[in-house]
């Protein structure tokens, strides 16, 4: 294969690149400062969260970022389990993307907890009936798997071939463990929605939520790599991964979204909530925005050869899927009614504060910087 490019020496960014890196660094520092401030003074003083809206921006991003980070298990599935070696060039960038997504989620979760000092609580106080307990364990174990999958890059760079070949020998069991753990927690995030029947709008609440979450994580994972790698191509000023490889990922995701669409609409038909699709109230409209962006756009656009041959076309489609997925995950969390108890106290609202945005953006900026430097310094794009 000719797609390999060795990137183990640092290449100076362009003038625009330097400005972008500078902005990301400033956002990271701002996120760090606001994050520490939040830990020092508490959630009430720094967020718009309340008893009526106990979860907010941060949890929505956690939900969406875990699906985005699904890129890692999806590509591991494609390359090692389905043995489609054409996509091997995407695997390492996917592991890097997944690893940074999951670390971002862990950082945000820590800041979102009422007792960050007890983040380890789920390890010693199990409740096997709680979806969040299972998700916590899977994310812990899967982040370890991701670190193992990522480790060869580091040890190749450090020239420790023995450690690299030891990890390489176990690559299939590690991969299967990672994909199985992902199957569990990606679907169990949907089970969280399932556990909140009064809090999730009937257009979204469904027995199929675990399956729909799992499928959309695969679809999102494929588009995530298209988006990330096309941005990286731009940032590094050369074709790190060939366009036809990325187009193949897009084409593959069409089938994922077709199955998703059939299940989604079939489920609404079965439960008798299909009519709600056409009420065109706030949630009816939200439903269509989500379906158009996350499901219909990839099915139609990735099927068009013109789109598959154009970097811009692929970027836009992958971006639409990403925005659509955010709509979907936020709808699961925020489409229901808050619960007021007092007679006149039904007026609670929620809009994220500056600090909530600053922390969230800071974590994302840090992840982007980490991605950039890892791609520069580690053999992310080299082949063995």
């Amino acid at each position, binding site marked *: 294969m000719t797609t390999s490019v060795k990137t183990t020496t640092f290449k100076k960014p362009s003038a625009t690149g330097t400005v972008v890196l500078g902005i990301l660094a400033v956002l990271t520092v701002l996120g760090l400062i606001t994050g520490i401030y939040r830990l020092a003074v508490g*959630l*009430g003083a720094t967020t718009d969260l309340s008893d009526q809206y106990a979860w907010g921006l941060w949890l929505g991003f956690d939900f969406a970022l875990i699906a985005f980070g699904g890129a890692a298990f999806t590509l591991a599935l494609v390359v090692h389990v389905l043995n489609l070696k054409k996509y091997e060039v995407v695997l390492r960038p996917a592991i890097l993307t997944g690893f940074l997504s999951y670390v971002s989620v862990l950082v945000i979760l820590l800041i979102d*907890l009422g007792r960050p000092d007890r983040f380890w609580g789920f390890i010693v106080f199990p409740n096997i009936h709680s979806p*969040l*307990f299972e998700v916590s364990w899977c994310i812990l174990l899967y982040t370890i798997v991701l670190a193992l999958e990522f480790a060869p890059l580091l040890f190749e760079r450090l020239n420790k071939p023995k450690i690299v070949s030891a990890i390489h020998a176990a690559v299939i069991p590690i991969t*299967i463990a990672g994909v199985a753990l992902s199957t569990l927690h990606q679907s169990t995030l949907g089970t969280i929605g399932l*556990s909140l029947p009064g809090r999730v709008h009937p257009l979204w609440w469904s027995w199929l939520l675990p399956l729909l979450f799992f499928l959309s994580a695969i679809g999102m994972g494929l588009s995530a790599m298209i988006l990330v790698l096309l941005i990286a191509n731009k940032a590094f000023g050369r074709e790190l991964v060939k366009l036809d490889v990325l187009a193949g990922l897009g084409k593959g995701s069409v089938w994922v979204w077709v199955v998703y669409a059939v299940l989604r609409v079939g489920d609404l038909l079965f439960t008798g909530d299909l009519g709600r699709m056409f009420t065109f109230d706030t949630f009816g409209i939200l439903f269509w925005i989500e379906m158009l962006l996350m499901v219909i756009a990839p099915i139609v656009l990735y099927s068009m050869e013109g789109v598959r041959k154009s970097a811009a076309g692929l970027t836009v489609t992958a971006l639409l899927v990403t925005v659509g997925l955010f709509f979907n995950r936020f709808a699961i969390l925020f489409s229901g009614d808050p619960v007021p108890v007092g007679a*006149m106290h039904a007026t609670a609202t929620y809009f994220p504060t500056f600090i909530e945005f600053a922390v969230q953006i800071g974590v994302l900026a840090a992840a982007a910087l980490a991605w950039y430097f890892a791609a520069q310094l580690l053999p992310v794009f080299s082949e063995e």
Partner: protein
Amino acid sequence: MSSNGKNAKGVLVDLNRCTGCRACQVACKSWNDNPAEVTMCLGCYDNPPDFSADTWSLIRFDEVEYNDKFNWVFTKRQCMHCVEPACVTVCTVGALEKTPDGPVIYHPEKCIGCRYCQYGCPFGVPRFEWDKPLGLIRKCRFCVDRLDSGIEPACVKACPTDALTFGDREELVTEAYRRIAARPGKYVNHVYGDKEAGGTSWLYISPVPFDKLGFPALGEEPVAHASEIIMNATPVTLTAAVAALSGLYWLTKRRNEGMKEKEA
């Protein structure tokens, strides 16, 4: 999983008897050492306006028209102490526990502050200490310490009109239907909490339909029932996933080897 024991306790709230004096509210604060709250006028008599970390019991004042005239309906609200509590099912660390005697109690030493219970509870009961750097959940605990000593909860003790009746839940359900049958014109034919969400320890009978008083309309299934069924299938899902992935790996590897042989 968790459910009521044989002689689980409950309280019957008869809204026809409540005069809105708030003695229960004060008794709750006093027994649980909860401080008073600074409140302001919101155009209603609810005071404080909602549950909070420091207010676990509350009288809600509703202006409702029935029998062709204007009426006040006063509703004492607190944790319903569900028979199959959603908060207990969803709590990440098992910090909430359903005791066989009825109370749903909270173990603050386990809590990580994820606030899943706040989302899971259909009655909006668990409240978070938003003003603390290290916040925890707080809620009505059915005066479990008093129950353990064989006496009624502080709010029931304080009620001057017998609007609150403490006893075995099963007997209270019978008593509730007896009161409705004895004076059918005075009550709507509905014991709220008998069947709702799998049943609650606190039961309500009322002169007006419960949706007029802000009670959620719930089915007979426990709220987190669906998710619990899925969670119980976790070992099956995991085994199936590992088996399917190993099988796929084996199949596709053979396919690739076959293709290579053909090429050779």
